[in-house]
């Protein structure tokens, strides 16, 4: 049979008191047969506060954690997609259809993330509009380049700019993860 938490704690406290009373001589404490009303109120209030912290507050922290984990997972998805794009650019072989699909998916994931952040009421300095703008710049740099045999061919300057932007995006996404993780719901 499962007992409610408050009854469990009450029982433990009561049994502890009896065990202590029986096993020790209780030389340090002296029990008075009078109860001071202020002390009684104090005891009830402290117990109530303890119970509130242990249950309601803990639940709230738990639900925020779920939201944060979900958002962090979404940011990681974007990070992984951009790392794949970076690997293609680094290798100098950028397959046309794969990269277009990857960039389309990244852009739509960023848009969804902006909506999710609004929904979770997280106000952070993640800078997702900036991330979206930079991703768009990456797309322009890559997909405005000539295509030969089903691959984009980037000039040296486009390659350098693209890699610089991708590195910058990677840092910004990492900062976004930290920012979401440390965000305090108030």
């Amino acid at each position: 049979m499962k007992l409610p938490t408050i009854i469990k704690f009450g029982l433990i406290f009561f049994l502890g008191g009896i065990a202590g009373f029986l096993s020790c001589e209780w030389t340090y404490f002296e029990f008075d047969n009078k109860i001071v009303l202020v002390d009684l109120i104090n005891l009830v209030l402290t117990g109530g506060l303890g119970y509130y912290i242990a249950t309601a507050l803990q639940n709230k922290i738990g639900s925020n954690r779920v939201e944060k984990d979900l958002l962090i997972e979404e940011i990681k998805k974007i990070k992984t997609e951009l790392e794949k794009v970076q690997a293609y650019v680094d290798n100098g072989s950028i397959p046309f259809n794969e990269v277009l699909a990857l960039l389309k998916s990244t852009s739509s994931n960023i848009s969804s993330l902006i909506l999710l952040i609004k929904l979770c009421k997280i106000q952070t300095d993640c800078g997702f509009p900036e991330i979206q703008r930079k991703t768009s710049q990456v797309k322009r740099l890559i997909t405005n380049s000539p295509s030969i045999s089903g691959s984009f061919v980037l000039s040296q300057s486009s390659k350098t700019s693209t890699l610089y932007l991708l590195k910058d995006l990677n840092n910004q996404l990492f900062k976004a993860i930290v920012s979401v993780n440390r965000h305090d719901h108030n």
Partner: protein
Amino acid sequence: MEELLKIASEFSTTPGARYLTDGKHSGQEFYEQILKKRFESLLKANLKLTIDLDGTHGYATSFLDEAFGRLSKDFGADVVIANTKFISNEEPYLIDEIKEYINEATNDN
């Protein structure tokens, strides 16, 4: 009145790059074989063209620039903007991007 042009079903689900020489389904091919003719005939009939961009694997900047930039060069940015409407639920930012190409193409002249 409007008429719909859905790129994924009427042209390709994998639009290509800029020129015919770049490979299949280029922006040049789309413009010359579909977009220009359709826009011209609708303009004469006083109808507007709605272009649905959804359902493809994505668009290269070169494809969009070639197709809509040339439309703007041939008919004028104001005429194109006034007589076209875009649908893009999958990539809503594409609509602003295309409008930029339309305006830039006329400014380049």
